[in-house]
């Protein structure tokens, strides 16, 4: 299942959220958060990792309850805008197969000063990993696979 949603912009809030089933292109996010009155941009990119300890991953596969995940990401982005005095936030999560070395999520945010965006990224990632309706299936090099259920 690889649902897809176009980027959703929330009114006057500079928030852009999308779930896509193709490689993530940094450009539209960068264009969105860029602003001559900001002095800082911070970015986080989550990537499919090959080795975890001695275990080799072949690929990850992501699935979402797309309307719920989109709404949750919008709410988290809007909360981050307020809590960290951001100018703009863009979040793109990829669904479907994500090969080794490719990005599953890209978050960019901008603000006048550096502290807000740098603090927003870990907060957003913690919230996303705890609550957003997206699931990852890990396919191992040996051919087995399993849904990842963090503790």
């Amino acid at each position, binding site marked *: 299942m690889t649902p897809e949603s176009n980027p959703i912009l929330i009114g006057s809030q500079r928030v852009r959220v999308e779930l896509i089933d193709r490689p993530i292109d940094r450009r539209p996010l960068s264009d969105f958060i860029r602003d001559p009155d900001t002095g800082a941009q911070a970015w986080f990119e989550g990537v499919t990792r090959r080795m975890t300890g001695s275990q080799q991953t072949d690929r990850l596969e*992501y699935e979402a309850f797309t309307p*719920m995940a989109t709404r949750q990401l919008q709410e988290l982005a809007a909360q981050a805008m307020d809590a960290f005095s951001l100018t703009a936030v863009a979040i793109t999560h990829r669904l479907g197969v994500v090969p080794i070395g490719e990005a599953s*999520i890209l978050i960019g945010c901008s603000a006048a000063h550096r502290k807000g965006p740098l603090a927003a990224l870990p907060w957003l990632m913690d919230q*996303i990993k705890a609550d957003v*309706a997206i*699931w990852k299936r890990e396919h191992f090099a040996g051919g087995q696979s399993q849904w990842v259920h963090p503790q």
Partner: protein
Amino acid sequence: MNCQVLLFAAARDLANSERIDVEVPPPVTAAAVLDGLGRQVPRLLPLLPACRLAVDQAFVPADFPVSAGSELALIPPVSGG
């Protein structure tokens, strides 16, 4: 009350279905819906304690009263990012 519940990821695989109809006796709370799912699909039982119910795309507490016509979704432990 008859409740249709959307299933995802590990829950969908266990039930081998993307949605399940569950008959839930009143009072129809979120906890009662989860209980009904376990009765109807026992293979979900090991996963259910780690799951949350989303009503109209928002997480709800166990005693949340579920109305007819709400969209229900069983949310296994998430792992996005």
